[in-house]
């Protein structure tokens, strides 16, 4: 066991994947010599060479488009999109090609491409550097969409995503890159929790709080505060997988607590919380004591950074959501 930042844990996971499978390659803007703007790929080009860790020209659509060609040739590319707001030039290649190639080919073709995207706000950045575009991809059949919330998951989930024969959109909580935690880098990834399983992070009895990515830590803090302040027992679940959703873990918890709150940074409107609310209502109707509530970003573009503390769901807004489920 060693204490690693989330960024370092990803780096170790990538290194392991490059070691294990000679077909794995990393490509993106500034991923080579610089090691990525968040240093996630630090040192990998030096150790694995320019043919396997490729600094590409600055063109997101081409990064994904050529990764598709490389995958058709038998490679297993891991693409970095530098920031969430920069993925949109690549959405055509992701949605019309990457997601559909297996279906279109009647199962003849597989595209094991992983797309890493640092997402979410809270770092005081300029426009287009703080967004949460995950729902666009969760809505697209053929993609698997996951988000890691802590260093240990970062280490295993990146390896599982790269090993997946389906394309995976891998979201990294950028404001948690520097969070440190114990990571067992010697552990076998086969023994880890499967990629598409959610995880109970804090067990509790009174209300289920579902979240992922950067808000995992915030929700854990909320659970601690609620236990001490209101003597309320919150069960926090890190969804980890946004597509497919692990409804089994979700419904088991809600059947127990009777209350459910979903928290994400992405806008609430037409977001993942809405999908979860509909499914929980359908599958746990007779267990529910209150409607499923959502806490998240507003139906506005991401604001200027001096306003982001108001835009982002924080501990108080999440607890406010929890409180409201007891008002029914």
């Amino acid at each position, binding site marked *: 066991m060693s204490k690693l930042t989330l960024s370092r844990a990803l780096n170790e996971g990538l290194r392991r994947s490059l070691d294990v499978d000679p077909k794995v*390659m990393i490509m993106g803007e500034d991923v080579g010599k610089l090691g990525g703007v968040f240093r996630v790929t630090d040192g990998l080009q030096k150790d694995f060479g320019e*043919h396997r860790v490729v600094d*590409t*020209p600055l*063109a997101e*659509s*081409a990064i*994904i*488009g*050529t*990764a*598709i*060609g*490389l*995958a*058709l*040739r*038998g*490679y297993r590319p891991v693409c970095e999109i530098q920031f969430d707001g920069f993925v949109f*030039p690549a959405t*055509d*290649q992701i949605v*019309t*090609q990457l997601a559909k*190639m*297996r*279906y*279109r*080919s*009647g*199962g*003849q*073709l*597989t595209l094991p491409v992983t797309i890493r995207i640092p997402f979410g706000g809270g770092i005081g950045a300029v426009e287009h550097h703080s967004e949460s575009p995950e729902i666009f991809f969760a809505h697209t*059949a*053929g993609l*698997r969409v996951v988000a890691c919330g802590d260093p240990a998951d970062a280490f295993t989930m990146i390896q599982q995503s790269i090993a*997946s*024969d*389906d394309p995976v959109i891998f979201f990294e909580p950028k404001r948690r890159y520097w969070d440190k935690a114990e990571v067992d880098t010697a552990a076998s990834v086969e023994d880890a929790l499967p990629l*598409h399983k959610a995880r109970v992070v804090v067990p509790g009895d009174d209300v289920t709080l579902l979240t992922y990515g950067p808000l995992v830590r915030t929700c854990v803090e909320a659970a601690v505060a609620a236990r001490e302040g209101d003597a309320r027992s919150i069960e926090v679940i890190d969804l980890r997988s946004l*597509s*497919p*959703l*692990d*409804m*089994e873990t979700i419904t088991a918890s809600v059947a127990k607590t009777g209350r459910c709150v979903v928290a994400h940074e992405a806008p609430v409107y037409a977001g993942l919380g809405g999908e979860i609310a509909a499914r929980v209502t359908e599958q746990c109707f007779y267990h529910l004591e209150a409607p499923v509530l959502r806490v998240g970003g507003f139906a506005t573009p991401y604001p200027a950074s001096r306003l982001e503390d108001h835009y982002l769901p924080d501990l108080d807004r999440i607890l406010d959501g929890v409180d409201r489920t007891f008002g029914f």
Partner: protein
Amino acid sequence: MTAELIQLLTPEGERVDNPEYPLDDVDIKGLYRDMVLVRRIDTEAIALQRQGELGLWASLLGQEAAQIGSGRALTPRDMAFPSYREHGVAWCRGLDPMKLLELFRGVSHGAWVPEEHKFHLYTIVIGDQTLHATGYAMGVQRDGTEDEAVIAYFGDGATSQGDVSEAFNFASVFNAPVVFFCQNNQWAISESNERQSRVPIFQRAAGFGFPGVRVDGNDVLACYAVTQKALKAARDGQGPTLIEAFTYRMGAHTTTDDPTRYRVASELETWKLKDPIERVRVYLARSGQADTAFFEEIEKEAGELGKHIRAACRALPDPVPLSIFDHVYNGENAIVDAERAQFAAYLESFEEPAR
């Protein structure tokens, strides 16, 4: 940069020698046969669409030389990435034409095994495949094989797409073994060349740092020779080439299109004089390489092919309803699997089973 149109066989059927493009090993009678047969596939498919047997067809009429010439220049190991009109290239790659009809009938999205034919699936979103070809070529480069090249097919309209420019740039920067084969058929549905670009397409290559050539796209010999040379350069590590095959879409964009709304009939009449098949027929007959029996034999073969296509198209079965859920993912997917089970139960709730 070559400024002129490369031509080895004039519209009148006269051979033109060009020392840069010697033609030693080419089977001209074979190219003629290919062109006649793919034109027949095209004619039959249009008729089948009119009879309601196909939902749509994208005709290649007029582009037979560009497709057969370039397609026959490929070696069995070269990989081709088509757009959606490359029925002639598909023919050269040994793909059963019924696979193409499946797509246009709507019984599949065109599911063949690309590696078996070294012919990727049709790509409908304009220009996307140029990046796939470039990436594939980057893979060839990494594999260190020297006898493989990649070719990307696209049209004049596609050159306006950002992906095509990005493909040119990536291919150039990485010196990837890929040939960009643009069939400039003068029309992107209703928009003419002038609406797509202010410079001739082949000249774009210069800005990206690799050679561009313009070839008479209705001259099967020139298309063959120019493509062969560009593929060889790619295999030899000299990087990409852009070929602009200057041709003409003699039919509609697809069977839903009405070209009389945007172009004059005299334009078509002018291009009919440059027909890609007729000039080869004249050349073969005049040079004594083929007699009446040869031409009759090919007509007969085309007739049989047409008959086969008509019958086979009508016999294509509709897929079963639950196949909607097949092949979305490799492994399990809880969401899709649950929907499949629900839909199966719904279908079973009827007394009459669904087909």
